[in-house]
């Protein structure tokens, strides 16, 4: 019986070449991963999660490029003809992968322009979420109801992006409506007191009350209060409740939409005349049904 001998099928040189490639991958790949993790954690600690992510990506992709070039070298594939052919192949690939290339280039612009960073809260076309990562092709968000959203970089470049946490403080605009009979001066005083007592409201920038409009059923005020960006949601949640509570205590009416009917004169009520007793009306209706 003949013993299996690999050298009958491939040359010794190819086997050694294969072993060298495997060894290079086995040694380099863990090093690249270790370096990526180190860079990510070092820059995260020293600067921010955003820079940690960027540093990790730079190390990882640089390592992978070096690894591929080394492997090609080991396999005896020269880079010169590859690079020469890259122009023609590049054109062909460019047409084939237009969207991907556009996303990659958009990703570079996003990283350079920095409209947002990792951990920022952004609003893209109505989708609000925390930025998890800015990758080569897309931006990954986690929404507040814990959903994963992937938005292509190209789309982010083309659409309006609202960064909700870019600046340290943020204003909340509370729409407050009061009845026409209320004293606006007193309402202003109460609102300012509410803002002063609210634990999330900032004394400065000072809260503002803007007389918005004479509404159909109410006088509409725009009550503007500032809070730290991370406490904005708490301010929104508490201040409106506190306004309602104080208005109830002070007997300030928050009117619901209503329509007043006048019969020619605003001082007289609508004339109502009883034409028949309810019982008679019911009997008439029963007879009509029969």
């Amino acid at each position, binding site marked *: 019986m003949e013993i299996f001998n690999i050298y009958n099928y491939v040359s010794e040189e190819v086997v050694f070449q294969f072993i060298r490639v495997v060894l290079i991958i086995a040694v380099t790949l863990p090093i690249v991963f270790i370096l990526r993790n180190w860079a990510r954690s070092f820059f995260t600690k020293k600067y921010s999660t955003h820079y940690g992510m960027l540093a990790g990506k730079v190390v990882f992709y640089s390592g992978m490029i070096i690894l591929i070039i080394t492997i090609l070298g080991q396999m005896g594939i020269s880079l010169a003809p590859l690079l020469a052919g890259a122009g023609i192949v590049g054109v062909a690939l460019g047409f084939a992968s237009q969207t991907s290339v556009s996303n990659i280039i958009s990703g570079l612009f996003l990283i350079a322009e920095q409209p947002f960073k990792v951990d920022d809260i952004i609003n893209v076309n109505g989708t609000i979420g925390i930025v998890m990562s800015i990758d080569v092709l897309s931006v990954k968000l986690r929404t507040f109801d814990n959903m994963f959203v992937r938005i292509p970089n190209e789309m982010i470049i083309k659409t309006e992006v609202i960064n909700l946490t870019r*600046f*340290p403080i943020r204003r909340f605009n509370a729409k407050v409506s009061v009845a026409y009979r209320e004293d606006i001066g007193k309402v202003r005083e109460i609102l300012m007191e509410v803002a002063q007592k609210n*634990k*999330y409201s*900032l004394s*400065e920038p000072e809260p503002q009350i803007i007389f918005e409009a004479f509404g159909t059923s109410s006088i509409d005020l725009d009550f503007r209060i500032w809070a*730290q960006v991370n406490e904005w949601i708490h301010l929104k949640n508490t201040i409106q409740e506190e306004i309602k509570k104080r208005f109830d205590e002070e007997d300030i009416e928050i009117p619901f939409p209503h329509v007043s009917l006048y019969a020619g004169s605003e001082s007289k009520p609508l004339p109502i005349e009883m034409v028949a007793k309810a019982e008679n009306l019911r009997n008439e209706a029963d007879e009509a049904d029969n």
Partner: protein
Amino acid sequence: MENDIWGTVSLQDRDVHFIDIGDLRLWLKYKDSEIRIAYCYRDEARGEVDEQEPPKEVRWVRWAHKNGHDRVRILPAFADLPLIVQSEYSLKVSPHTTIQVFSRIPIWITIALAHDDYLLLELPAIKMSKTWFGTPIEGELCYHTMTKARRDLSKLKPEPYLVSCPITISNKSPGALDFESFCFRVERLGIYKHDGTLWADETQITYHGEEHHSDVIMTGKLPEGIDKQMQLTKPRKQIHASLTTRTFKRLFEDADILGS
């Protein structure tokens, strides 16, 4: 009463240790090798409270630690953020004039384990609202407080929850200085007790005009009659020889930024 507040207390010796200072009420007790602390502010529990038992709406917070130490150190402290001190009445300082005013600032209370100074809790004696010192784009979070900027405190009744801070203001500019509000970096001040009153070391503010930064120096100089032995609390941050920072507020004047 105020003389009894500060210092080391053994909680095992009593059922409940009660503290009433400013708007804050604190109950401390030692049970099952744990230190338990409950607190509330005056607006949260109106009227008289039972010194032996907190109201129902107030919850005990428990600390379990190694060796079951029962001794706590209760000390006053300055706020953990700078203060924007606003003068109740505007005070104008003439050009090339130096004056001294006193600002009485609400304190915080720190409760730490006596044997290793492990901080259990720190609370303001009265609730202070937060404010922003800077522009809407950058700045820092501060507390907001009012002062009468008095020139003399001798006739005032000492309050255990207020620390008197002497502030020397030098107006070196050719124009008048309108002393309305300023950023007081209290984390660089120590607290001293003298005659039942809490005092801080001196702060010196030199104003060079609107176009220049003001110099704020925590001189470390103590008010008359006070010496280092009377120190209750060290500054939260080390005092540097000179702290140059923007002190007087010329902010938020641009209504276009905020009003739009």
